[in-house]
């Protein structure tokens, strides 16, 4: 069955799809959520904390969409403010200090655009995450579970391994934003999606991501357990591999992973 890029965009945005917390709750044990950036507030668009993967303590961070309007308003539709990215970085630095691997679940239309976000330095917050993640002395794995939109996604996406769910999309901007900039018409989003090369297959071909996690027919919501089990399997396998590598080698490979994209 062939699914067009635009259909994938719509699939990726389906409220029924498993969200960050679904993965966290079903993959890990004893998840303890830690709140706040210690600077301004606690951004509910990003959830983070510590959990066990088997016997291994790990730091998990996820962008969190709501299942309904009420939840989505509380989560700001998973569009983080600067304090969300700063919370994520605080938890990542904490992970580095205590030698915990970091696992990120990406699902955002993009970083929030608004007055407060600008006043508090949205650009600075994202930039700081990119630079610091490149040097964090602990393994990082990121999963684009549904929507990976722009710098807002990348700020949790500088990793040793990046995986996408089969029907997830990862792009420079939402197709609507892209169409609005390039075609001066947001309604040409479908055409934009076609040219943007935002599907998991495209990104694997470009070697931007390391692998694709298959979804059941119709999408991840049709068999959440299977999808989450697949994610867990990849995660365990990759962690085993990454944890045995000397940290200098890991960091050099992480740098080269992005260095070669041209």
């Amino acid at each position, binding site marked *: 069955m062939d699914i067009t890029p635009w259909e994938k965009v719509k699939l990726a945005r389906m409220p029924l799809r498993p969200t960050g917390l679904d993965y966290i709750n079903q993959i890990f044990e004893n998840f303890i959520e830690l709140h706040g950036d210690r600077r301004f507030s606690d951004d509910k668009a990003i959830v983070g904390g510590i959990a066990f993967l088997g016997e291994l303590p790990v730091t998990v961070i996820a962008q969190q969409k709501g299942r309904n309007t009420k939840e989505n308003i509380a989560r700001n539709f998973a569009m983080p403010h600067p304090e969300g990215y700063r919370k994520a970085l605080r938890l990542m630095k904490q992970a580095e200090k205590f030698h915990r691997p970091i696992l990120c679940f990406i699902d955002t239309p993009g970083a929030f655009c608004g007055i407060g976000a600008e006043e508090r*330095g*949205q650009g600075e917050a994202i930039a700081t995450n990119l630079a610091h993640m490149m040097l964090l002395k602990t393994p990082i794995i990121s999963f684009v579970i549904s929507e990976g939109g722009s710098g807002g996604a990348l700020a949790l996406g500088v990793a040793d391994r990046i995986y996408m769910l089969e029907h997830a999309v990862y792009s*420079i901007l939402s197709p609507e934003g892209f169409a609005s900039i390039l075609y001066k018409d947001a309604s040409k989003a479908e055409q934009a999606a076609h040219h943007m090369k935002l599907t998991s297959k495209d990104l694997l071909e470009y070697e931007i991501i390391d692998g694709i996690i298959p979804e059941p027919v119709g999408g991840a919501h049709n068999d959440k357990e299977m999808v989450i089990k697949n994610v867990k399997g990849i995660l365990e396998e990759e962690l085993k591999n990454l944890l045995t590598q000397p940290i200098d080698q890991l960091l050099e490979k992480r*740098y080269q992973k992005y260095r070669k*994209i041209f």
Partner: protein
Amino acid sequence: MNKNPFKFKKYATSQIYRVRPKDIGRPDEEKPNVPEGIMTKCPNCKKIIYTKLLLKNFKQCDECGYNFKISANERFAMLLDDGDWLEYDKQLTTKDPLNFPGYADKLVKTQSQTGLVDGLVTGKGKIEGSAVMLGVMDAAFFMGSMGTAIGEKLTRLFERATEERLPVIVFTASGGARMQEGIFSLMQMAKVSGAVAKHSEAGLLYITVLTDPTTGGVTASFAMLGDIILAEPGALIGFAGPRVIEQTIGQKLPEGFQRAEFLLEHGFVDKIVPREQLKHTLGTLLKMHSYCGENQI
């Protein structure tokens, strides 16, 4: 009701043909008879400025202080001692990684129009005697948007600087990421930020100078990573552009929002420096960071 009120002459003529008494005898004022290029009109305060004077004044309006756009090459000439510098990767261009419809043609057209290969010029020279690696974005090229060519050139500049243990100064001017290169543009943010992080880890100085406009993926990567962040007066600096924010929140933005002065107020810029002071400010900062522990008071 009359369908067409304008067919009555008295409505049409009274305003349009009225001659203001003060206009009599000065018919040519609106179109001064001077050769092209001698005078320049300030887009901000509309003052007509003698172009030679404007150039002497670092392309700043002497009336309102408006900063005219400066090309990357003009910037190099303005900053580096004797205008003497070595340019890197001059011919480096994008591979059009997405094979995006119409992009290759538009690139060629823009290249011939601007005389640039892409929107960033990099090189090495001296500012007030201190050696420095300099990168200058040029907003005339695809609105200074960052694609793979800019990402690669900047990364190389930082890697060279790390190897030669030199400071880096980058002038930003960008509408954000280059849409036509899609995910590859996005990844340049991580790539350049990585190179900046390594340069920083080596204990080396990085100064950014944010010029009008600095937005999107450039703000969210190397623009905001300077040890010291300077800005030109009045420059628009932000993550999301003002139009996008207005559409998102459905309200008008306050006056001065996202201008350099606003960022200074909110703690994201160290200092706003007018153009005539830039060279000396940068030269002084470079000198302050050349201390290696051997100097005495």
